[in-house]
């Protein structure tokens, strides 16, 4: 089977759910910066930037849950980078046709980039979804807590940044 979903974190699919410098809300593009992930350098951050800032990003990626008479094996692979420390947690939810969550599966939790802004970190998880719950929507939520460098005096060149790419494979 081909890849079912491959997408980057963008201002369209990602919001700030916590921000030590300002109110939660949309994200803004910053950069470009290195490293690139799969050719993309479109990092995102908060509209406000301060030394040592901590921002929690929430990205939601959606794919249809096919109607099948057998179970659906699904693999989630996440590659991410940021300035400076990034910790990511992934959760999969299955919603039925009424939009009601019928299943929540933790995928991975607390994976970090080791505080290295040149590091593209990778994490993978998989699950087997029973046929009885398919036919609706699958949402994969990636929460990333990113802490910017502490610099004195504060230098805009050290602005925090975050970029991730999700790859979802379904094997039918």
């Amino acid at each position, binding site marked *: 089977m081909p890849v079912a979903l491959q997408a980057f974190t963008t201002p369209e699919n990602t919001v700030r759910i916590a921000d030590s410098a300002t109110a939660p809300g949309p994200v803004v593009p910053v950069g470009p910066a290195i490293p690139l992930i799969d050719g993309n350098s479109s990092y995102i951050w908060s509209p406000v930037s301060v030394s040592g800032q901590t921002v929690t990003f929430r990205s939601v990626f959606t794919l249809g849950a096919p109607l099948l008479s057998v179970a659906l094996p699904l693999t989630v692979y996440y590659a991410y980078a940021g300035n400076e420390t990034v910790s990511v947690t992934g959760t999969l939810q299955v919603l039925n046709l009424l939009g009601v969550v019928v299943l*929540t599966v933790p995928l991975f939790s607390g994976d970090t980039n080791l505080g290295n802004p040149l590091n593209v970190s*990778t994490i993978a998880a998989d699950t087997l979804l029973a046929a009885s719950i398919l036919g609706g929507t699958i949402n994969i939520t990636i929460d990333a807590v990113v802490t910017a460098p502490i610099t004195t005096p504060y230098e805009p060149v050290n602005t925090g940044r975050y970029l991730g790419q999700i790859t979802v494979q379904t094997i039918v």
Partner: protein
Amino acid sequence: MTDMIGGEKMPIVLQSFTTPGNTSIVANSAGGTFPQIPVVVQPSSTAPFIDGSNAYLWAPNSAANQTVTFVSEFNFPLGLLNVALPVSVNYAFSGSETVVVSGVLEVVNLLGIVIATIPVFTNIANAGGPTSVEIASGNTLLALQLLGTTAVLTITATVTSGAVGTGNYLGQVTVNEVIAL
């Protein structure tokens, strides 16, 4: 209650970097006796790390615009199961200057005979250049009669260095098997 309607998880069955231990050089425009053993080289200050590693490989000899072909082999067991086995592969790689990778999965029976050969991805290039970590992905569903055996995932990478400096190459493979518990 979630166990009754699905959502069982399996750990990663294999996660490994390209190293001098699992990688050999089968072609090198700068010459040599093959297979050649790669060496770990110092990457540039802008070379990305992949999942914490920057142990980039290159040939023991170096030349401008050199082309080197690396073959890496990764083994993992397929287990004894009474159902078919979904296997997914993700490969993160980077290099200087241009890199083209292909992945092939072979199933080997207890006698060491290859009984299935499955291309997983073919000719994926590092379009983002030397500061990018590229992702190649593929998957397959292995039939019951192939199980109880070993899988060998072979990643072949052809890397061409630039006019200046030494080339380098680093990859990390992640394999997931999805099994109902």
